[in-house]
């Protein structure tokens, strides 16, 4: 018993900060349970959300998890910056600091950015291509629940069992058992494998959805650019994520079953881990960035009231970036002795990515040229993105210059660079998409005024945080150090950087406040088209009904909805065109599957094999049960659809 307690609660989870987190998690959880009971919402939660296969609701659930991830990852960042604010600080000890930068990076990539892009995939793609759901709605729910339970599994590590502490890259041999006893790394390895299954399934799902379920007349070259970006991203996911799964699985086998893939003492090859990790890792950068590019392409055209400039070049550069992204991974370790020829090859291939990216930047600017630029919050994020990303891209090219990289590698110059492109590129894009599609998700607009405050705090905070970090890199400061002495000239820049991080934190708080405020003082979107949009989702009411389109649209042009409006057509449908619609039926299987994986995951993390095996048996049983499921759909009668559409004021005549 005492052994079990020691395993569950090692000293690292009994520090005051962790105990404080325990208390707030318990209180918060209790509050939610009481609230749901008081409002009698358990049935509603089960029927409307937990068992749903509706892409719009799954998207919203992804978004909620992404926001929680952003909160936790951001809080981690604030704690890291607080520790580094002054030299010889004692706010966090080395172990604590190592755990926090590990969870910061892991959460921001896997449990913030990934669910955020999947949220927007789910919310926008079927509506943009004129479909009623994704190709495999149940699989979509399975993807979500695997992600959600992996999210919980990873995030509980710091209060039960101990946090991972080998960095988000988890390089062998630091993850070897002899250097890294305890269960922390197991959490990392197993949670990422579980969510990885869901991620690959999402890639397959959206690839098929886009290739097979577009509205009549919407040829590939008439798709909105966001849909193109999702198509390319899905193919990147399918080919890149298996490499990560292999890297994680082999490390897991080393740790749990004593194999020696990367274990040095038995002739393992740690560098093989590094290769596998980055063969996934670099395409991953574009898995995050390309959807953001897609969002910007929609937002810039809408808020410039103008067609996108250079559509074929935009599509071509998306494809070029995706292909090149597989050929650059060694640039993450030029200094690992691969030799001059290999380094020269990967340096040049990395620079080549600047060409299609440059083309995209110019095309966005020329989309604005000759337009009428409206400064909405969604557009402000786009406008902040262009200069920020150009600078981040330029420092990326500087890192691709191999001899230069020998001086920049793993320094704060690198830290500044990748935050510059991942925040300036991806996060700005996600915020832009959030403001842009929010009314479509919830039927009301977010406060523009508060949104602007959040924007300026976040943007200025961003530059105040990361510009000094470029300079710190030139001063020789390396990443992941928890402490630094006086006298190296690092102190003022670190202090400034920390203040910037606080400003970004304030920006986030304003954003959250704004969401709550805007919900309480709802400004409803009655037209379904608040931005004078160009693509099909804006032809629907906000939020869209369960079946999305009462009558499936036909498309003749790019910017289909804009063209319809130019021809004087409205989004209304004729009653006689409406027929019965077959929709997928809700199912508890995805939720139970996620839960079973969670049980198996816990068993594996703590090497409690009976529990792990029981969890996997549940998984198999649930998958087999799917073979016998016959009633996986239901028909909505035409009369009911007519009533719904009439109530929305969308019937003609």
């Amino acid at each position: 018993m005492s052994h079990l307690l020691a395993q569950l609660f090692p000293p690292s989870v009994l520090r005051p900060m962790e105990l404080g987190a325990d208390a707030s998690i318990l209180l918060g959880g209790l509050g939610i349970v009481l609230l749901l009971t008081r409002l009698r919402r358990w049935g509603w939660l089960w029927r409307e959300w937990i068992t749903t296969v509706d892409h719009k609701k799954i998207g919203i659930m992804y978004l909620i998890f992404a926001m929680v991830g952003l909160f936790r990852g951001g809080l981690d960042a604030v704690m890291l910056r607080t520790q580094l604010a002054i030299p010889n600080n004692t706010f966090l000890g080395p172990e604590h600091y190592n755990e926090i930068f590990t969870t910061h990076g892991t959460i921001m990539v896997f449990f913030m950015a990934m669910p955020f892009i999947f949220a927007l995939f789910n919310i926008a793609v079927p509506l943009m291509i004129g479909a009623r759901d994704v190709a495999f709605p149940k699989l979509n729910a399975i993807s979500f629940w695997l992600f959600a339970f992996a999210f919980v599994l990873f995030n509980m590590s710091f209060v039960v069992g101990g946090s991972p502490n080998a960095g988000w890259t988890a390089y062998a041999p630091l993850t070897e058992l002899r250097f890294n006893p305890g269960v922390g790394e197991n959490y990392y390895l197993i949670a990422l494998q579980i969510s990885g299954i869901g991620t690959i399934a999402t890639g397959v799902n959206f690839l098929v959805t886009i290739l097979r379920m577009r509205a009549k007349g919407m040829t590939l070259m008439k798709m909105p650019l966001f849909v193109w970006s999702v198509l390319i991203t899905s193919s990147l996911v399918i080919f890149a994520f298996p490499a990560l799964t292999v890297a994680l699985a082999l490390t897991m086998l080393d740790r749990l079953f004593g194999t020696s893939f990367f274990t040095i003492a038995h002739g393992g090859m740690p560098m093989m881990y590094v290769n596998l990790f980055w063969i996934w890792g670099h395409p991953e950068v574009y898995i995050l960035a390309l959807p953001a590019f897609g969002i910007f392409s929609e937002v810039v055209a809408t808020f410039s009231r103008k067609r996108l400039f250079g559509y074929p070049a935009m599509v071509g550069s998306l494809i070029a970036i995706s292909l090149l992204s597989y050929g650059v991974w060694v640039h993450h370790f030029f200094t690992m002795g691969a030799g001059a020829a290999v380094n020269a090859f990967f340096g040049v291939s990395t620079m080549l990515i600047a060409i299609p990216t440059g083309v995209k930047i110019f095309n966005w600017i020329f989309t604005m040229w000759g337009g009428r630029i409206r400064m909405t919050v969604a557009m402000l994020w786009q406008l902040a993105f262009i200069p920020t990303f150009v600078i981040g891209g330029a420092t990326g090219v500087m890192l691709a210059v191999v001899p230069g990289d020998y001086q920049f590698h793993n320094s704060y110059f690198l830290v500044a660079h990748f935050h510059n492109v991942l925040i300036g590129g991806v996060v700005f894009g996600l915020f832009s998409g959030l403001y842009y599609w929010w009314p479509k998700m919830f039927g009301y607009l977010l406060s523009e005024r508060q949104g602007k405050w959040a924007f300026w705090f976040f943007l200025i905070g961003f530059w105040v945080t990361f510009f000094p970090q470029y300079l710190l890199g030139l001063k020789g400061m390396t990443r992941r150090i928890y402490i630094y002495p006086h006298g190296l000239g690092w102190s003022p820049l670190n202090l400034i950087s920390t203040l910037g991080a606080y400003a970004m934190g304030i920006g986030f708080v304003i954003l959250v406040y704004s969401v709550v405020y805007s919900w309480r003082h709802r400004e409803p979107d009655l037209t379904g088209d608040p931005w004078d949009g160009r693509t099909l989702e804006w032809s629907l009411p906000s939020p869209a009904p369960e079946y999305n389109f009462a009558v499936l649209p036909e498309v003749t042009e790019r910017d289909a909805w804009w063209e319809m409006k130019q021809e004087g057509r409205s989004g209304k449908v004729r009653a006689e065109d409406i027929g019965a619609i077959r929709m997928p039926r809700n199912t508890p299987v995805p939720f139970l599957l996620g839960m079973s994986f969670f049980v198996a995951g816990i068993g594996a993390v703590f090497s409690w094999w009976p529990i792990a095996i029981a969890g996997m048996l549940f998984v198999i049983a649930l998958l087999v049960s799917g073979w016998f499921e016959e009633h996986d759909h239901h028909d909505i009668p035409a009369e009911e659809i007519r009533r719904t559409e009439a109530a929305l004021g969308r019937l003609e005549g």
Partner: protein
Amino acid sequence: MRRHRSRWFRFLLPLTVVAAGLLTAGCGQHYVVLDPAGPVARSELHLIETASVAMGIVILFVLVLFAVTLYRFREKPGSRAPYLPLWHSSRLLEFVLFAVPVLIVIILAVPTVQQTFALDRLPPAKHPLVIDVTSLDYKWLFQYPQQGVATVNYIDVPVGVPVLFELTANSPMNTFWVPQLGGMEYTMPGRVLPLYLQAGKAGVYRGNSANFSGRGFAHMVFHVHAVPEASFVHWLQTVRQGSPAMTMQDYRHLIAVGTAPEQSFSSYPADTFPTATHGFTLQGGMYMEPN
């Protein structure tokens, strides 16, 4: 119109203050990457400068184009800028915008490839001083195979003589980095990687690890004393005569987890550094228990 302008200033003012603050805070002596003390660091800096200028031109060009576009085409009452809702392609423009990045990449790629190969080779004129480097948890062990001495967390090197560092690890990976002498290289268990550096002027240069290796990683700091050749010979004599010999027990003490002060040894046990890249025969390490 007046109102608009004052709103712009409200945002510009804090930005200017911040920028000015950054520049003042940024000034000073400590830009080690920009202050090379040897030919390797100097040629790397030269390439960094070339890349910075090229990228600076790109950034400036895009920012000006962006600012002009934004100013001219922002929506305002009575805007006289042309409105071209259907303008969406221009062969000539698109060709130019494709050609410019291609040109810049070529301008940068050529010297990158040249320098990548050049820095991989030893300067031919002189015999290099060889220093075998082993990163340990959490300290640096340096061995001079030609001279037979060893040090911990500091080295002396003669000015003007190329140094071949042979890098390995008896711990999780680190990187060996002395910014003022040149770029870094990983220390990896099971492999020996070469790195050529050379001090061009006398001085004490800080070195540290750039790859996270666990709890004591932040303390993986060492110093390089670059001294004239005569002083180097003198230092060798002092170490040989005045410092203890490293026993196997001393070595085991060093590889145990923990930090260590600067130390000197007049000799060190054989087979504590691998002799070939393959067939790694490290003895007494964390990975291979001592006999």
